[in-house]
């Protein structure tokens, strides 16, 4: 299948081709790809794309996924996106 037609990140419409080019251009970690392509920053919060991206990085670098660098202490709530109106009542207490 053509890598131009494979969507890796559904929130930001990033294709496998774009991902591979970004990695080649030196954006070769989850943190940098996020900031360069906005991959993982959409409504899914990386739940769809992260493993696909890590697998690609692992292949390029020829290391197991467990050896890739990931900042362990970074937590970005909310777990699932939530509309402001669902928070409003609580916020006005």
């Amino acid at each position, binding site marked *: 299948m053509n890598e131009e037609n494979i969507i890796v990140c559904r929130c930001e419409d990033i294709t496998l081709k774009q991902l591979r080019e970004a990695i080649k251009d030196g954006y070769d*970690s989850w*943190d*940098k790809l996020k*900031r*360069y392509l*906005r991959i993982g*920053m*959409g*409504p899914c*919060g990386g739940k769809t794309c992260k493993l696909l991206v890590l697998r690609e990085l692992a292949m390029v670098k020829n290391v197991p996924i467990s050896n890739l660098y990931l900042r362990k*202490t*970074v*937590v*970005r*709530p*909310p777990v699932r*996106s*939530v*509309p*402001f*109106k669902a*928070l*409003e009542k*609580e*916020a*006005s207490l």
Partner: protein
Amino acid sequence: MTYDLIIVGGGIQGVATAYELAKRGAGKILLLEKTFLTGGSTGSCAAGIRAQFGSEFNVRLMARSLEIFEHMDEELGYSKDYLELWQGGYLVLAYSGKEFEGLKRNAEVQHRFGLDTVILSHEEVQKEFPRVNVDGVVGATYHGRDGHADPFRVTFAYAEAAKKLGVDIREWTPVSEILVENSKVRGVKLEDGSKILADRVLVSAGAWTTALLKTAGVDLPLWGEKHEILITEPWERVLGPMVISFSRGFYIQQRPHGSFIMGLPPVDPEHWYEPEEFDFSSSMDFLMRMTKEATHVLPFLKGVNVVRQWAGLYEMTPDHHHAIGPVDEVEGLWVAAGGSGHGFMFGPAMAEQLSKWMTDSPMDIDLAPLAPGRFKKGALVVEPAVVG
């Protein structure tokens, strides 16, 4: 190998200064970054750019910075779309007569330096910006060239341009010590114990600057302060300007990408000097306070989904202005930090002027009063228009 200059810190300040210095032929430059480029405060900032300040310094510098942003595509070879440059203005709301008077005074300073900030009455705000809830709003100021630029893309663009001019950039290379001999800088020591020598060292490491300078025996009153922020899902364009209030503290902007980015200052911020103290956790308290302000001033946001919260550091100085220039105590040691929440937007202008200073060229805007020595001398510079 010995470098002419080592820059510590891969945020906007360090990277843009590396580029500006390379452009001016300042010799062999090495930039060291502890994590990855934009890994510190630049990468967690709110991406706003504005010239609506109150102090003469800040207005002049930001007027220049906006010009640089406006021509950055030609200068660095990346399109405005890539850089996510958006000039939808900043709408600064006043919630009391006194606050409105202050904004008008700021506008006078802005007019003096060629900016066409407009003063809007309550009714004019309502008419021009129908999505803004004007409840309690006395008036506002608006400057249409303020707006947004993507901190990641701008920094990456400067980095690529700097590399083309021969700057070496090393990520994942933490500096543990600044080496000094007989009150003269010698280079830096890395966390792995190796040393890199240089005639000059520039520390532009945001809130991490203070601890690094301490290793050179230099005491700088610059601290990190946690500020929280959030972003929503992207929408089609419905809001032009950044909507901001200095008294209530909120700022809300729709990015070119479509998402709404917004923040509020902390209620009772701690002052952190040591990196071990830095805390980047997100809180429910912030989410609730932000929800209240956001849905009040922009009621249409009620139906918008919050996607992500994060936190970053403002690097504060006693007078909310940069500490920039040579360090008195150590020859060859320079500092450029302390943007006090505005480091990204000032970055391009500060880098340009600093590079002139460091190459003994005349500065267009004299940064000398912002040299770090001012804190000891008590010569502070006052800025009335800040959030938090």
